[in-house]
Structure formats: C-alpha cells, structure tokens
C-alpha cells in the first residue's frame, strides 16, 4: 500500500491498523453478501447479521491466538471471521450445503469452527457463558496458557447464566475475557427499557470482575483495550470485562425491516460507522482512498467467490442426517 510518512506512537502501528481495517471490511462484505443471498432466496432460515458492529469483532480478536477459544451468540458471523474461520465453509453452512463448517447441520445460528478455536455460536441467549467459563476451567486444569473470550449481547445480561458465569469465573480466577457487545437493542426491544440499574460493567464489577466500557465503533480503541485485558487474563489475573458500545444497523433478523425503529437513529448510527472512522484515521496516517478500494474489492471478491461456491455446492447426502448424534446406540437410531 502507498503510504506517506506518518507520526509514530502508542497504538499507532500501521500494519495492525490495516489488519483491523481488513477484518472489518471482510466481515461487512460477508454480511452484505449473505443478506443479498438470503433476499435472493438462496439461503434458507433466518440470519442475524452484525452490520455496524464490525469494530467489536475485529478489535477483540486481533489480540487472540489461534488456540485461544471463543464462544459466540446468535449474531456470530463476524466473531467467526475475526477468529479466523474460513468464509467459504461458513457460507456453505449458511446455505446448508455439503462442506459447510458444520456439514449443514447448524446453519447461521450454530456456526462453529473448532480448528480456529471458535467453539460455536449459540441459539440461546447467554448460552455461551457457562460454556466459556468451563472451557477456561478446563484449559487451566490442563496447564494451557490459552484463554477464552466470551461474546454476548446486552440482552444476555438479564439472564441467570450471566450472574452465575461471572461469579464462577471470578471465584476460580479463570482466564476468560467477557465481552458485552452492546448494540442498544435486544431483538426488537430497546435494551435499556428492560434493564435496571447502571448496566453491564457495573454488574460485572459487583461480582469482582473488573473491566472497561469503550466505544465499540472505535476499532483501534477496542484493540488497545483488549490487548491490555488479554495480557491480564493470560497473566493469571482472572476474568476481565469489556463493555463495547455499538449499534446494529439492521433489524433483528434478515426478515425484520426494523420499521419499529426511528430511522433517524439508524441514520445517526451510520455516521459513526466503524469502518469509515478507521478510514479517516488511516487517511491521517497517509493511507490513500484507492488503497481502501483495493481492500474492499478483494473482500467482496472473496465473499462473491464464497457465495458462488455455496450456490454450486451439493446438498448434504440425506443419510448424513443420522451421523454424529452419539456413538452408543447409534445403530438403533435409524429404525
């Protein structure tokens, strides 16, 4: 990339910023491509996309190693891509095709790729929290220095497992980074209208889990915060908490036009786009507009290719419906 001389300083690593940028752009391209494919009737079932929230996924995962684990929620495409999952296999999974990440058994809501530590999206709000703390407990027992990142929405903090899981992680000083991706809504409801008290971080702190609240649309800030939190978690200080504020540009699912929401609110949010924001920063650092276009074109080509492959891929063989239920008694299942 063409770059002009630029000032250097903390958090100013250009290569890193460009990596964050590329990840966000790839997530956006994946989500837009998936939405278009869904509209075209190519993808069955609902999709929960994360347009507008790319800064959180990209910023959180930049500090993670491949063997670090991640649990996600129903809106997990971006988390999976940022953790290193292959978009082709993900797209095949969304299409329900052979060769998908889960062989077509999971779909959008159950994207998982254990080969990159992505332990699964989850169709149950807050379902990943107990799994994350247990994974951390297991890793600690196995004397691994890998850590676990647990992603959930602001809607999840009103379910019991949030209280149980944070208490548990603090109690056993487990290597977990909790990330509340606060997009302001829970499904079709403004989260603040159903959440009492001072919010996610205060709840975490009341259980002895320290952390920070940041602007999740400021991707380098997310990266900086997570770098520090991950160092603490990996260093044995116990669980940490990141409360990342962002905004969901779309409705709850791919079929929700979000007519229930004030269009001005959405328009204002789009001004705070995490990608545009990083472009501005990168521009100040000497990256040129054509360079952004190259990244965007590459990302779109990658996702178009994934879509084409998914569209052309065969359906799973019907008999695979019987595989991977359980070993014991599996034969009896077919009857």
């Amino acid at each position, binding site marked *: 990339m063409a770059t002009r001389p630029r000032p250097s300083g903390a958090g100013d690593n250009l290569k890193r910023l460009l990596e964050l940028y590329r990840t966000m752009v790839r997530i956006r391209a994946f989500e837009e491509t998936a939405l278009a494919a869904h509209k075209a009737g190519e993808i069955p079932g609902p999709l929960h996309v994360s347009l507008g929230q790319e800064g959180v996924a990209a910023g959180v995962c930049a500090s993670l190693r491949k063997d670090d684990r991640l649990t996600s929620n129903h809106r997990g495409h971006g988390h999976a891509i940022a953790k290193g999952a292959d978009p082709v296999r993900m797209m095949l999974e969304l299409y329900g095709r052979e060769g998908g*990440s*889960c062989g077509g058994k999971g779909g959008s809501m159950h994207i998982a790729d254990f080969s990159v530590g992505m*332990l699964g999206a989850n169709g149950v709000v807050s*379902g990943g929290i107990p*799994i994350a703390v*247990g994974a951390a407990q297991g890793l600690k027992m196995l004397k691994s220095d890998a850590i676990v990142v647990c992603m959930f929405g602001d809607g999840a903090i009103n379910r019991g497992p949030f209280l149980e899981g944070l208490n548990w992680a603090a109690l056993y000083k487990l290597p977990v980074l909790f990330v509340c991706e606060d997009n302001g809504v829970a499904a079709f409801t403004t989260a603040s209208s159903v959440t009492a008290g001072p919010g996610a971080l205060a709840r975490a702190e009341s259980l002895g889990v320290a952390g920070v609240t940041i602007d999740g649309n400021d991707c380098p800030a997310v990266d900086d915060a997570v770098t520090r939190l991950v160092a603490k978690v990996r260093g044995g200080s116990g669980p940490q908490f990141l409360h990342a504020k962002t905004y969901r540009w779309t409705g709850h699912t791919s079929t929700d036009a979000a007519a229930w929401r004030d269009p001005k609110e959405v328009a204002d949010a789009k001004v705070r786009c995490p990608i545009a924001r990083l472009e501005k920063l990168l521009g100040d650092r000497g990256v040129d507009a054509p360079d952004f276009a190259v990244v965007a074109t590459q990302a779109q080509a990658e996702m178009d290719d994934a879509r084409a492959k998914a569209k052309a891929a065969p359906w799973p063989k019907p008999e695979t419906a019987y595989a991977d239920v359980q070993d014991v*008694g599996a034969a009896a299942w077919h009857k």
Partner: protein
Amino acid sequence: MAQVTTTEVTLIEAGRLAVQQEMRRDPTVWVLGEDVARGGLWGQYKGFLEEFGAERVVSTPISEATIMGAGLGAALVGTRPIIEMRIFDFVMCAMDELVNQIAKVRYMFGGQAKPAVVVRMPHGMWRNSAAQHSQMLEAWFTHLPGVVVVAPSSAEDEAGLLVSAIRSDDPVLIFDPKDLWGATGRIAEKIEPIPFGKARQLSTGDAVTLVTWSALVPKAVEAVALLTKDGVMVDAFDLRTLWPWDEDAIVASVKRTGRLLVTHEAVEVGGFGGEIVARVVDRLGPQNIKSAKRLGAPRLPIPFSPPLETQVRVTTDKIVAKVKGML
C-alpha cells in the same frame, strides 16, 4: 480361570470406588458440583479432595446452569468432567445446558464437538422428600437424541456402568437410585466396564416377561419370589440402560412367554414403559402377544406424608396382582 477377589460394598461405595479408579487412571477426569469437596451430599466422593486436590474436586456455587454448562465447556477443551447434580430434581435449573447444549453440540456442529461428560442425578422417592426431591423423569431423557441414559440398581452395575460412562465420548446421564444407596453387592478390586444397552436377567421363566429398572428392581425380585411360590415362573430383567435399551433380549423373552409387564416407579402416563410395550408389540406382532401391560405411579406429584407416599408407590403386591391379572 483365575479367581477374582471381590469385596462386599454398598451401592454408594461401589460408585465411589469406580470414580476413584477412573480418576486415578486418567488425570483429565474431574468432578464438579455442590459440596463435592466435602464428599458430596451422599458421601459418594468421600476422600476425593484429599487425594485429587481442589482443582479436580470442585465444590461449586449453587449455580446448576453453570455446573452443567461449565462441564460442557471443559469437555470441549479435552477434559472429562463428572457433573454432579446433587439431586435429580435440580437439573430443571440446568435444562438449557443439558438439552440445548450438551445433547446438541456434537450434531449441530457437524461432529466437531466431543461432549464427553457424565451427569449424575440421584433420583426417585427417598424417605418422604416430597414433590421436589423425589421425581423419576428418566423417560424425558430417553426422548432426547444425543445422550445415553443409565439407571443402575445394584452395586455391581453402579460401578461398572460408571466406568463405562466415564470412558465414553458420549454424554452419559446416570440416574443413581437414591433409595438403593445402601444396597450391597460384590465388586472386584479392578472394576471392569459394563457395556451400555445390556439388560441383566433377574430370573427365568416362561409365564411372563417382567421388565423394570432402578428402585423397583428389588421389589420386582420380591414379586418374582412370591409368584414362583404360586407356580408362576417369571422371566425378569433389570434394563440397566434405558437408552440404548436391550430390545433384543426383551423381544426374545416375550416371544417365548407371550406376556410383557413393564413396571417403573415413574408416573405410568408417558413413562418409558409405553415405549417398550410399543416396540415389542411392533416387532412381534399383536397376534403373537397375549398381554402387554405397564405398571407405574398414578399421575400425581409425590406427596410428603408417609401414608400418602405409600399410596403412590408401586409395591411388590401391586406387581404380583398385575402379573396374576395377565395370566
């Protein structure tokens, strides 16, 4: 054949020795649940904290959802947790983690996940414990794809089936029979695994096939003795594993006897007895069966007061009367 030395132990001790043996064999096996570090509610983990340390014998907060879910998470990174639910009825607080997560991850993720957990859930009526500490809902879990369902009734089976459960890569649900903790049996110094899905024959006969499990096994044995005195010879089985269950053994027996009674402590309506009767009738054809019946509890919560509780229980006399009515 070399003589195997055996020791007489209670069912609870048999289970304790089995878990201890497996924890000594495999350092990735560990236990989590409320009060397990003090030996568990029932003493089934007595001495474990001293031997294995607090990292492998984890007394947890009263957080059933996380006890279950953390067990799963720990399995997903390669350990083999034994999840102790204290008393079966509390699993209701962990149903999402059991039903939506543990039973689903392997399938839903296309075989990537290995949820190798054992879930121990002591169940059944036990000394007037009333409606929230006495339930037998094992039938629910036979309906749940993805899990193995085990309900032992003897010390030998408790030990051998626990060993199989701990070594299994499938999630295995063990319904320990609370009312039979004190039942004694003989176990070998080295506890061998007992394969899932094999019934244990309790008696042989050609008049009727009697199928049961868990707390009703001793009552079925008493009933068989009474019926034998009256000249009614019973082919009786302890199913031991409810999923997979020993369909071939039961079908072969009913083929000879022509009569089948399934009895369980659980409520009769919607109980697993219905499934057994239906399968056997399917496989043999109704024309080849003289009688096929179930005997379970009435569809009531378990009451507290002793005479009320007795009213609900399936007893030896009820089994005898039911069999006689089928002849």
